[in-house]
């Protein structure tokens, strides 16, 4: 088990380095921060001074070398805009995103498992058909459209909820609900399919022959077996939320990492972009590790 964790950590380190190289050089191709930062009328000297101050006058490779050196010591540089350490800025935003992702995915997982399992138990019944329709709509609706409609209906017309921003608990409701819909739709379908095959399996027949009640058959015998493929997709969906739900965060003015990343890219705040990418990549690595371990926990046949 420990060897497995170590091996995975090493493999992830390599991809992190690759990611770093790619993002560093690609982001430098997007334009000159000096001309974006300084007023249009700034003189060439001022621009040169700005570049020298931030090390932007050095050859790219030298800049990269310095950057990597700093990263190793835990220094991800200063945010050009906010004049604060980039890591602090990112971690602050990431905390918001993390909460949003954790709450949303917890709700999605619970709801999808219950709905999907019950749909599978009576295939072709009313509940099955109803939940299939709902989940199909959920999986297909574009989230930006849903976000805007939700604001119009619940925030503007009914005035039940705030339109955007943060501050109170009610600020969380709309973003969570909007982010909930798509993964819910996808995972319900998956749980249903996976449960149908688990419920028709031979060991369920044995359980019925033993006289086990329907509840335990669904939620103890079949579900644990059916969860294996589902977990992969839950992880996948969670990863896309951790990346920052860029559009939804922007629409709701939610100060998460997705919004931060978009803002920083538009402002050529390279250090923040790089720090955000590193932090989310690291979080996704951790989450994948947790998923692999959950696999082993659920299925005794899997041993690392």
């Amino acid at each position: 088990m420990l060897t497995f964790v170590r091996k995975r950590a090493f493999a992830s380190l390599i991809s992190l380095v690759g990611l770093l190289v790619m993002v560093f050089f690609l982001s430098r191709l997007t334009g000159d921060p000096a001309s974006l930062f300084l007023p249009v009328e700034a003189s060439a000297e001022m621009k040169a001074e700005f570049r020298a101050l931030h090390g932007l006058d050095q050859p790219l490779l030298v800049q990269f070398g310095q950057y990597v050196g700093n990263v190793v010591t835990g220094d991800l540089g200063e945010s050009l805009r906010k004049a604060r350490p980039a890591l602090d800025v990112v971690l602050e935003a990431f905390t918001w995103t993390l909460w949003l992702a954790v709450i949303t995915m917890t709700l999605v997982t619970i709801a999808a498992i219950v709905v999907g399992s019950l749909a599978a138990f009576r295939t072709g019944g009313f509940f099955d058909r109803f939940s299939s329709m709902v989940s199909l709509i959920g999986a297909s609706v574009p989230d930006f459209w849903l976000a805007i409609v939700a604001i119009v209906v619940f925030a503007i017309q009914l005035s039940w909820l705030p339109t955007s921003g943060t501050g109170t608990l009610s600020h969380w409701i709309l973003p969570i609900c909007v982010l909930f819909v798509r993964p819910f739709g996808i995972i319900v379908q998956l749980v249903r399919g996976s449960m149908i095959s688990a419920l028709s399996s031979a060991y369920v027949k044995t359980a019925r022959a033993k006289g086990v009640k329907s509840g335990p058959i669904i939620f103890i015998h079949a579900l644990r077996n059916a969860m294996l493929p589902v977990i992969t997709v839950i992880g996948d969906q969670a990863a896309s939320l951790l990346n920052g739900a860029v559009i939804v965060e922007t629409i709701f003015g939610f100060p998460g990492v997705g919004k931060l990343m978009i803002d920083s890219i538009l402002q050529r705040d390279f250090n923040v972009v790089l720090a955000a990418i590193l932090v989310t990549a690291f979080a996704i690595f951790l989450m994948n590790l947790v998923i692999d371990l959950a696999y082993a926990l659920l299925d005794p046949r899997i041993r690392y």
Partner: protein
Amino acid sequence: MADHLLEVRDLSVDFHTVTGTVHAVRNISYYLDRGETLAILGESGSGKSVSSAAIMNLIDMPPGKITSGEILLDGKDLLKMSGEARRAVNGRRIAMIFQDPLSHLNPVYSVGWQMREALKTHGISTTQAQAEALRLFKRVALPDPEAALDKYPHEFSGGQRQRVMIAMALALKPDLLIADEPTTALDVTVQAEVLALLKELQRETGMGVLIITHDLGVVSEVADRVVVMEKGQLVESGTVRDVYRNPQHAYTKKLIAAAPGKGDMHEPDAHGASILSVKDVRKFYGGFEALKGVSFELKPGETVAVVGESGSGKSTLARVLLRLEEPDGGTARWKGKDLFTMSPGDLFKLRRDLQMVFQDPTQSLNPRMTVYQLISEAWVIHPEILPKAKWRERAAELLDQVGLSPEHMGRYPHQFSGGQRQRIAIARALALEPQLIVCDEAVSALDVSVQAQVIRLLDGLRKKMGIAFIFIAHDLPLVRDFADYVMVMQKGEVVEFGTVAQVFDNPQMPYTQALLAASLDPDPDVQAANRNARLARVSQI
């Protein structure tokens, strides 16, 4: 009149499918008393498992529907009970064991957990259930029963898993045990042990046993009475001896006649040089030695049967000889050239001569290809055999040769029965005009009567075309009828090699003797004599 333990009266079950309604069983009636064993004998599709599924309430409705009849347990109709009352009967009064214990045990829970669940479901406390589970594991003779409770199904051998299933089924001392092909997936020696255990437990508890099987040998070994089913109907019933000695219905007669192991044994008469000469073949999987130096010779038109239990290395040998896996030592000379050191180009040419027929035609035939495509694919790969203009004609000829009709060319594998599919696989192998066919359990999955047909087909090919066979099988009577030589393998080694007559009539090695002794004879009297001889031997030891 005293009630029978179980009485099935006039039961009919339909299944509604897309293609129409299937009458799975029609108006069948039988009974079973305490302490008695009733066998339901039938081939695949006969509906033999349907009535037991109805007894256990395991039929999915829909698509299934019980259209008539009663199932009386001690005189009470199970079909009229509420769902809850029915559930309370399952496990407590009637228990069931199945063919494939690996898939019938939940892979993600320990067997101890599953044992305890069987007990706790019917109201027994956790601590009591734990103690009871341990007692039962000891009773069914699982090695190291305490540790076994914490293990998972995949950590046991096939025979041990069936013991776990039996322990679980007997947890609540049921009055009736239904065993659906309980030993079909097991090796012969393990089958003998499991059947003996079942008999022993039946004597102890006095339960009635309903055993569902396709195997006359199993019937003669364990059953008192037998009912024979064909196409959903009960065609014959009686005591095992009466039915075997004096079958009334044509189908029963055919079934008994098809049972292998009664014909004349072959006397090898091939002469000339060997076409295949295998010497000291070795194969490792990591540190595990799957083949420990296997050697044998094969002449044109000759058949060598490789017998042995699972893990003996017989399938590995086949795969290594055909270079589907790389050998780790030894030589295999095909007409003087070593198959193992051959260049890929030479090997490709040789593939024509060496063909393989696998156990499961459902898996080895591509489901998206028509029969014509499956057969002619051989000529696409080896275009020198036949010009394209003649493909259709030759495919028709081959289908005719294996007993199918040329009109079948446009159909897909799923439109055929298991036996027909295996014929297609054979036709495909023949398309390359091979000189050696390796059959890896090629008839094991087929019904006895179909098995007999396929064996006749192979025998004809051998005589007409001089094809040599390496015939891998675990079914000894079948080997006895078909092979010239028998090679007995155990744990990667050849323990005995000889002509069929030598090995079957005068086995030298204890392992061969044990294998033969465990093999079941369809004749109840012969089987009873065998059983007594076996018991006498055991008591001597």
